[in-house]
């Protein structure tokens, strides 16, 4: 092992992640006519796109991908275990995750467990920081992660096998195939990932006991052109995950956790005579089972079935003005061992305007009214403007109001749920400076976010927890994103970096929220020479508080971890890539949740066949 590491060091070639920072400014002229118009606020807020080649180079879980390529802090209960985000200083349920435009946050917890989302098979993943309530609905307070499958025509037959294997008996088997002709598309993605995950804890004589996991994911996508102006798309995804939960202390009783989620979506798109229509009908099921003792068939569970209907209409009044109208309906049926069986209906209506004032200036206004039976109906808005002030400099400004509805657990937990809860509300503003020249780009954003009615489970004098709207949180921060690339001859170097400074204060106490670092940095350098490529990526997380009184002795220290990878393409006419990666290259002991050590240096190799 040592020799290998030294040889890596000698090669001294680091490199690569391909984080495309899409700039809508440069595409402004064409974009007005494009279907991306359905993404509201896409002009007046910044976002990042992670491409499929970047997705493949990172580990299979969404946690790993975003940890090394975004400003989001992840609270991971050990590798592969439950993982929740803190995006722009917000809580775990204040990040929305969209699957092909449908919110897939759990209705029982409000969160997405980022280790139950397999990134393999997605064509791109979009990171949009900041309030997205008007566009996305509930949960989009810190930001939104959109997982997307692309449907393209006339691409013929494509097959891809990605086989990975590494330390701790970790392996992944992935197939991604698609076929399309002029009018039909069919795609299939299969992924199976498993690990014994019994890594040794650094600076300790313990190992990660009972941490084994396996998951399988199946995706199916199809598209049919019905006519020259309309199209039908079908998406399906099923995730089956089985995890043992690693032991916090050596003699703890081993537990396990099963997830089973299905997502089905039918989408109709039409674009005719300046009128665009998009209708989505989705059916989602989510199910978890928690086994307090792996030896016994006794478990608690939660199950929610959701039906979602969305209709969007865009009308081009002129080449520079578009009007948008949308109606959303969601029905959730939940049941579980601890929650009462309940059904809830949520509706909302949106109207919006986009106006291109000149070649250099565009603004957009969107208004959304929630319509539901259970609690106060917030009125949401977003307003944004983008101005290109020179060839290389543009500013974007955006203000919005977003919300998060209480979860089934909050409302209907037997005996403790609180039906009087109000939605969390968030008022935000942000200003971005975007500098672009040739393929280089630097983006600087400052933002302010005030969250009211924060939902917490609070103990009473006898120690009984009940959910309440308690705190007010004031969040502000700075983000710097950089993308640089340079080509000479056959050589290509790219550099991507993110930095976030985040202050997230409970207004009553003045204390920083727990598990929100003041500083986070990611950086990735990649190098490409003909068939050879290499990358080096680094992650720095500043210290975090783990107690609400910000107790010094409970602080989780800062850490800096790095990965390195080499890849060579053996194929003559087709791609037969082989690659090897060293993860946690410097063998740093770290943890992102108290008492949950992460793995030390480990190795991962892969073969990627495309034909």
């Amino acid at each position, binding site marked *: 092992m040592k020799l290998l590491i030294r040889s890596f060091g000698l090669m*001294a070639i680091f490199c690569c992640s391909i984080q495309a920072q899409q700039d809508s400014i440069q595409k402004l002229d064409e974009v007005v006519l494009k279907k991306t118009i359905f993404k509201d606020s896409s002009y007046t807020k910044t976002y990042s796109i992670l491409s499929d080649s970047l997705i493949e180079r990172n580990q299979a879980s969404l946690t790993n991908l975003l940890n090394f390529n975004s400003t989001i802090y992840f609270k991971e209960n050990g590798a592969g275990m439950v993982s929740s985000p803190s995006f722009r200083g917000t809580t775990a349920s204040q990040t929305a995750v969209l699957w092909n435009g449908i919110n897939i946050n759990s209705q029982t917890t409000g969160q997405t467990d980022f280790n139950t989302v397999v990134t393999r098979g997605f064509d791109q993943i979009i990171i949009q920081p900041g309030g997205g309530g008007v566009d996305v609905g509930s949960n989009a307070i810190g930001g939104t992660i959109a997982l997307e499958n692309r449907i393209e025509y006339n691409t013929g037959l494509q097959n891809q096998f990605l086989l990975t294997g590494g330390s701790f008996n970790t392996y992944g088997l992935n197939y991604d195939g698609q076929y399309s002709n002029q009018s039909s598309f069919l795609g299939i993605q299969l992924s199976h990932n498993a690990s014994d995950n019994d890594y040794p804890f650094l600076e300790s004589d313990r190992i990660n006991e009972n941490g084994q996991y396996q998951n399988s994911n199946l995706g199916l996508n199809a598209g049919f052109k019905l006519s020259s102006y309309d199209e039908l798309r079908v998406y399906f995804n099923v995730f089956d995950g089985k995890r043992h939960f690693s032991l916090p202390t050596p003699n703890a009783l081993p537990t396990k956790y099963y997830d089973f989620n299905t997502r089905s979506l039918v989408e109709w798109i039409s674009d005719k005579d300046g009128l665009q229509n998009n209708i989505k009908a989705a059916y989602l099921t989510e199910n978890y089972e928690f086994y307090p003792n792996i030896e016994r068939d006794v478990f608690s569970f939660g199950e929610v079935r959701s039906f979602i209907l969305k209709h969007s209409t865009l009308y081009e009044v002129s080449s520079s003005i578009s009007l948008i109208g949308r109606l959303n309906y969601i029905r959730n049926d939940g049941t579980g061992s601890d929650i009462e069986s309940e059904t809830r209906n949520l509706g909302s209506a949106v109207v919006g305007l986009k106006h291109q004032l000149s070649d250099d200036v565009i603004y957009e206004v969107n208004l959304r009214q929630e319509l539901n039976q259970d609690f106060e109906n917030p009125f949401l808005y977003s307003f944004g403007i983008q101005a290109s002030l020179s060839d290389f400099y543009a500013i974007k400004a955006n203000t919005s109001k977003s919300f998060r509805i209480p979860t089934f657990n909050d409302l209907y937990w037997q005996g403790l749920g609180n039906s009087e809860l109000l939605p969390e509300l968030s008022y935000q503003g942000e200003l971005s400076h975007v500098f672009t020249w040739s393929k280089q780009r630097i983006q600087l954003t400052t933002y302010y976010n005030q969250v009211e009615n924060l939902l917490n489970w609070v103990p009473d004098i006898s120690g009984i927890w009940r959910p309440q709207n308690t705190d007010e949180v004031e969040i502000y921060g700075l983000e710097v994103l950089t993308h640089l690339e340079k080509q000479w001859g056959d050589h290509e170097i790219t550099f991507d970096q993110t930095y976030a400074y985040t202050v997230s204060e409970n207004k009553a106490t003045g204390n920083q929220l727990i598990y929100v670092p003041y500083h986070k940095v990611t950086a990735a350098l990649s190098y490409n020479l003909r068939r050879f490529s290499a990358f080096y990526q680094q992650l720095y997380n500043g210290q975090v508080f783990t*107690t609400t009184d910000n107790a010094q002795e409970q602080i989780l220290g800062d850490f800096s971890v790095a990965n390195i990878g080499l890849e060579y393409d053996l194929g003559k006419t087709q791609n037969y890539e082989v690659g090897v990666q060293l993860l946690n290259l410097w063998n740093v002991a770290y943890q992102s949740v108290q008492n949950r050590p992460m793995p030390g240096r480990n190795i991962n190799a892969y073969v990627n066949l495309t034909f």
Partner: protein
Amino acid sequence: MKNFNLIIVAALSILFCSCSNEDPTLQNDTPVPEGDFTDGFFVLNEGGFTYNNASVSFVNDQGEVFNNIFSSTNNRNLGDVAQSMSFYDELALVVLNYSNTIEVVNRYTFESVASIEDQILNPRYASIVGDKAYITNWGDPTDIEDDYVAILDLNTFTIQEKIEVVEGPEKIVEADGKLYVAHKGGWGYGHEISVIDLSTNTVQSKIEVSDVPDGMLHSEGYLYVLSSGKASWTGEVTKGGMFKINTSNLQIEEEFDFPDGDHPKFLVEYDNSLHYILGRDIFRVEPSNFNLPNSPFISTADQDISVLYGFNIHKDTVYVADAKDYVSNGEVHLYNTSGEHLTKYGVRLIPNGFYFN
């Protein structure tokens, strides 16, 4: 290519930060005090569930607080969810519920003597009789038929025997050759006191009390039991009650109910009186006048305690623990027996008990 190497070195020097080499999970702060822990009191901080940060604080008579005395002395963490502490000769036993471990230390130095890690599951409380510790265990929390009292030999530190009992054994008290086990309930809710004959180590009989017996103590021929009753959130609310049981014939001699909605907790004897907690108030019952008291003996209302999580009375001082929101360091409040607030001390996460050498 030389330039490129330079770039890499520069990039590396910026990016690579060295991190400390301490065990990142070790809970360690203040140094251990001089002396033998006799001039003050211990606070048991149970710590956050799964965070492995249970601890013991010691506050001396000068008001100095020494936290994490176990990890400071032994250079390792105490464990996960410290439930209770018991004493035997020179030893102190700390029962760690989620770690399924009993840590045995010298009570005057806090140096580790033994760790009992096998054959106990979900341990709760211990009662010392002779050179044996009788430890209540819930067993597998999902199995309501595997609960037991483990007998720990304090010479060999091995579990000798297990006495099967009904679900949810909690407090355990010895009196006149018998062990009394209060079944507060673990997965469900209990309403019994098991009576174990120490000569045969078998359950000899059971005494029915009202739901959720939380406090129990023995004094002058009587066993006193305080039941909390089931709270409204359980879906089937029941009344709390107090019981005076004659240990010579195991009959309930006197009892009274609490009003609907009152769910008292704890039971402490001091100055020949019984003390319990209801909300933020401490109430007192005289064994000779076994009736529901009208007004509190002491109120903690002025201290604005968030979660009243620990309670004891020792040498004319009343000790009350505030667990805050469970996610921050707790506090302990001291009162005199006239109800005057004397002082408060900051301790560690989730203080749940007070112990004295």
